[in-house]
C-alpha cells in the first residue's frame, strides 16, 4: 500500500543551490525506502518537503504534489503542525534539546498540550524501547540529555520523534557521526520500526543503503535516476549511472 505518492515534484531554492527536478515516487507503507546518491543530489531536500521543514528555508518555488494519506501536503492550507506530528524527523547530527532525557522525550507531547503524567511515562517507555535505548537510560531519565554518548543521543533523538506516535519517520543520515556499534543499534531499531511505521532513510553509505532498504531510489543532481526494490537496484541496476555509483565507479 502506498503511504506517500509524490507527483512531479520540482523545487528550487532562491540561492540556486540543490534543487529537485520533476520527481515522481510512490513510498510504500511499513517498509524502509532509502534515498541514496552523491551529496547535493536532493535527498535531504526531498525529506524536508515531506514534513514541510523546507518552509524554514529560502525556497524560490515548489510545484507538483505530495499526497500523504490522500491529502496534498504541499497545499498551503493544510495544518503543518499536525503534519509534523505525523511525520517525525531525525537529523544527521544528534541535536538533543538542553533538557533532561525525560524533557527531550516529552517535549513534543507538551507542545501538543498533553499534560497527563501517565501518558508521558507510557510514551517514554514505549519510544525508548523502540529506539533500543531503554535498558541504558531508564534509571536516569532526569539526567541532562547532553551527558549521553553520541550514539545514545542519536537514539534519543529517534525516540523523541517516536514519542509522539508518528506514522512516517524521516532519517537524514542518522548514523553519519556514529561508530559501527551505535550504527548497528540504530539499524536494528529501524528494522523493528518499519513494522509499525513508514521509514524513509537517507543512508550515509551505499553499504548502509543495501543493508537497510526494502525500496531504494537513486538521486543524482536533483533527478530521480532509478527506483526499484532494494534487492534489484543493488544487484541488477537498470541504469548505467546507478550501476556506476553502486559499484563505486564514482561518488
Amino acid at each position, binding site marked *: 500500500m502506498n503511504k506517500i505518492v509524490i507527483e512531479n515534484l520540482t523545487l528550487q531554492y532562491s540561492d540556486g543551490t540543490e534543487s529537485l527536478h520533476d520527481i515522481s515516487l510512490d513510498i510504500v507503507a511499513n517498509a524502509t525506502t532509502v534515498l541514496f546518491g552523491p551529496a547535493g543530489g536532493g535527498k535531504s531536500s526531498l525529506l524536508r518537503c515531506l514534513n514541510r521543514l523546507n518552509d524554514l528555508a529560502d525556497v524560490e518555488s515548489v510545484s507538483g504534489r505530495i499526497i500523504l494519506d490522500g491529502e496534498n501536503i504541499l497545499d498551503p492550507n493544510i495544518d503543518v503542525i499536525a503534519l*509534523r*506530528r505525523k511525520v517525525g*524527523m531525525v537529523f544527521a547530527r544528534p*541535536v538533543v*534539546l*538542553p533538557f533532561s532525557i525525560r524533557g527531550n522525550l516529552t*517535549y513534543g507531547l507538551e*507542545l501538543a498540550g498533553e499534560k497527563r503524567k501517565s501518558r508521558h511515562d507510557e510514551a517514554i517507555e514505549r519510544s525508548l524501547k523502540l529506539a533500543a535505548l531503554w535498558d541504558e537510560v531508564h534509571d536516569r531519565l532526569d539526567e541532562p*540529555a*547532553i551527558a549521553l554518548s553520541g550514539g545514545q543521543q542519536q537514539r534519543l533523538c529517534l525516540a523523541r520523534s517516536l514519542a509522539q506516535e508518528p506514522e512516517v519517520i524521516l532519517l537524514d543520515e542518522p548514523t553519519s557521526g556514529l561508530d559501527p556499534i551505535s550504527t548497528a543499534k540504530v539499524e536494528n531499531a529501524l528494522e523493528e520500526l518499519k513494522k509499525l511505521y513508514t521509514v524513509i532513510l537517507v543512508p550515509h553509505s551505499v553499504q548502509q543503503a543495501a543493508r537497510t532498504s526494502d525500496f531504494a531510489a537513486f538521486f543524482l543532481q536533483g533527478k530521480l535516476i532509478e527506483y526499484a526494490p532494494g534487492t534489484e537496484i543493488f544487484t541488477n541496476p537498470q541504469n548505467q549511472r546507478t550501476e556506476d555509483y553502486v559499484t563505486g565507479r564514482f561518488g
Partner: protein
Amino acid sequence: MNKILTKNRDLTQKLGFSLLTLMTLLTVIPIIGTVIYIIVQGAPAISWEFITGFPREGMREGGILPAIIGTFYLTLGTAVFSVPLGIAAAIYLSEYASENRLTRLIRLAIINLAGIPSVVYGLFGLGLFVLFLNFGTSILSASMTLSIMTLPVIISTTEEALRAVPQSFRTVSISLGGTRWQTIRRTVLPQALPGIITGVILGLERAAGETAPILFTGAAFFLPRLPHSPFDATMALPYHLFVISTQVPEMPIQIQYGTALVLLVFVLGMNVIATIIRSRARAKRQW
C-alpha cells in the same frame, strides 16, 4: 647570523609585550584610583544616619535616604517600561522579522539611539512626557525618559543572547510540531535568559547613574519627604551629588564623597549581580 636575528626578534617581542602590559595597566590605574579615592574620602561619612536619615541644615548634615529611595524608584520604573518593550522588540527582530529594508532601518535607529547624548534624552522627555503628555516633573516622566535611553542596550544585548542559541534547537522544536512561539518560549528564551538578564542589569545600571535625562523630567533639588506616587518628583543620587557639589556653598566634602560612594556601591552592586548570573549560566550551559 641566524642566531643574532633570533635574538633581535626575541627582544622586539619582549619590548612589544612590555609595552602592551604597560598600556593595560594605564587603563586600569585610573579606575582603581578613582574607586579607592572615593572610598577613602567617602567612608567616614557613611553611618546609619547617613543611609536612613533625611538631609538637614540645607543638606549640609543628616542623611541621603530620599535620594537613595528615589534612585531605587527610578531604576524600578525604568525597568517596568524598558524591559518588556526591549525584550519584545529583540524577540521580534531576532526571531520573526525577515532581513529587509524596514528591519535594517530599525537596527540603524537602535544603534543611533545608543549614541545620542543623554541630555538630549532629557530635553525630549521634557517635551513629550512632562509637557505634552502632562505627566509633570515626576518619577513617571523621568522613568520613561530613562527607559528610552536604556532601550537600545536592552534590545541589542537581548538580540545577541537570542542569536547565540543554536539554530538547530529551533529546527528540532519545529520539526517536533512546535509553533514558532512555542519554540521561542520553551527552548530559545530559557537558554537566552541569563544573557538577557545581564543585558537588562547593565542597561538599568547606566540609567541609575544618569543625571541629565532626569534633570528636567523628575529630579528634585530637595524634598523633605519621600515620594508618594509616580506623579511626584523625587530626589535621586546622581542629581543630589551634582546639587551638593555645585549648588550648595560650604558643603562638607565627606558628604559629597559619601554620596558618591553610595551611588558607586549601588551601580557596582548591580554590575556584580550581572557578572554572577552570567558566570553561573556559563557553567550550567548544555551546548
